[in-house]
């Protein structure tokens, strides 16, 4: 039997419930926690959300989340502009940044092709990647660093096929990262090895 709350509380619970990993019970607990806080504390959360949404955009070059466009990495003079590492999520960029021996650029797809989640090639930042490769002839190599899942693998093979015969070298992180693991949870040493042993597709 569902409990009844006033419309405003119900709405807050419903919004929290939409967040990943937040079930109905947790949403309720969080909502009552927020309501128990004093005004200043509770509104600081609302402000942080509003500001982040206002100030954070996608980098027009690499599609990573950034407050300055282009982002720090794309603007940096110390990076190898001939290599672009393609990842699924902004989180993966920070993971790759822990790897000392990578100094190229990134491209964030914001997902992988997944029919089950109704995500096709047009729903990820693939067109942006291809446009970037057209505009920046200095890019010579694409490193595909998708998560080693069925969907990540299919996305990588799909991109590799599009780039076939363009003269752009397409490589993939070696499978030092076990199948099914999220890049996010791989340690820097494993990633570094996978990067060094990357294989041409």
């Amino acid at each position, binding site marked *: 039997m569902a409990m009844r709350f006033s419309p405003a509380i119900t709405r807050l619970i419903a919004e929290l419930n939409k967040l990943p990993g937040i079930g109905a019970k947790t949403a309720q607990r969080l909502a009552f926690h927020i309501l128990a806080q004093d005004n200043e504390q509770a509104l600081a959360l609302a402000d942080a959300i509003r500001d982040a949404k206002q100030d954070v955009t996608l980098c027009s070059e690499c599609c990573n989340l950034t407050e300055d466009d282009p982002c720090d990495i794309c603007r940096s003079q110390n990076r190898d502009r001939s290599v672009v590492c393609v990842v699924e999520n902004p989180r993966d960029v920070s993971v790759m940044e822990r790897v000392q021996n990578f100094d190229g650029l990134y491209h964030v797809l914001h997902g992988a092709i997944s029919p089950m989640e*109704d995500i096709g090639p*047009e729903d990820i930042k*693939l067109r942006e990647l291809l446009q970037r490769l*057209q505009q920046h002839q200095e890019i010579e190599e694409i490193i595909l660093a998708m998560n080693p899942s*069925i969907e990540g693998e*299919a996305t990588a093979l799909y991109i590799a096929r*599009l780039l076939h015969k363009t003269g752009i070298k397409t490589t993939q992180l070696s499978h030092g990262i076990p199948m*099914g693991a999220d890049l996010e949870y791989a340690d820097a040493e494993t990633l570094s090895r996978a990067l060094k042993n990357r294989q041409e597709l």
Partner: protein
Amino acid sequence: MSKISDKGFVMASFPYRDRDRMLHILTRDHGLISAGARGACSVKSKLRPLSNLFSLCNYEFFYHKERFYVDDGEVIEAFLGISESIEHLTAASFASEVFRDLTRNSPPDQKYFDLWAYTLYEISQSERPVLLSRLSTLRLLAEAGYAPQLERCGSCQRPISSDATFSFQTSGLVCGSRACESASGDSIRLSEGTLALLRHVLTAPFNRLYRFTVTADVEKNASQFLDLYLCEKMEKDYKMLDLLEHPFDMDLSGLKRNCD
């Protein structure tokens, strides 16, 4: 808390909570179950390889508070051929959705597990994965008791062997008689080749189910029928294959690098 061992295919796998995954597993003996895999996103988790979409595994589950959890197991086959192309991935995903819908409320029966095993294997190997996935839904419906009548007129039961019209109203073919024609309602013309293919799929043993050759015309006609029949019987519009109807369209000639 009780423990259960069973073989199963991962039919769907979703991130859940921080590092968990929620799996829909078609098991051999317990039908379709939902099972949590705690910590499965972590690299070092032993549940990680057991949570991959489409993998076939030996599972140890424990059952606690009306929920299954994956406790342990080993991968038997990962079916990596599915990632070969978007067509393969989409075909397998579509078939998985239909299998999940149909087995969700059906009593456990090993025939569903066996049919999925042959289907997934063949999709992973085939050059026509989408056609195979559509055909698998017809056999699945037939196994569940929803076979179309492709030997007789659906109204008067007169045997029909050549090309014919199929009536969704009677779920059978339509003979030439005026009475049967007027009772037919929504219908589709099936060529002789299509009928032969569909009859084969309804009756062949699973291990020979996907052994056939068809022309492009038959593939088109059969696909039309299969989509309509599935929608009619499941009372649901399956959209997953639509993903393939709008292929990624972009002029890639500007990507070429000068190789000097």
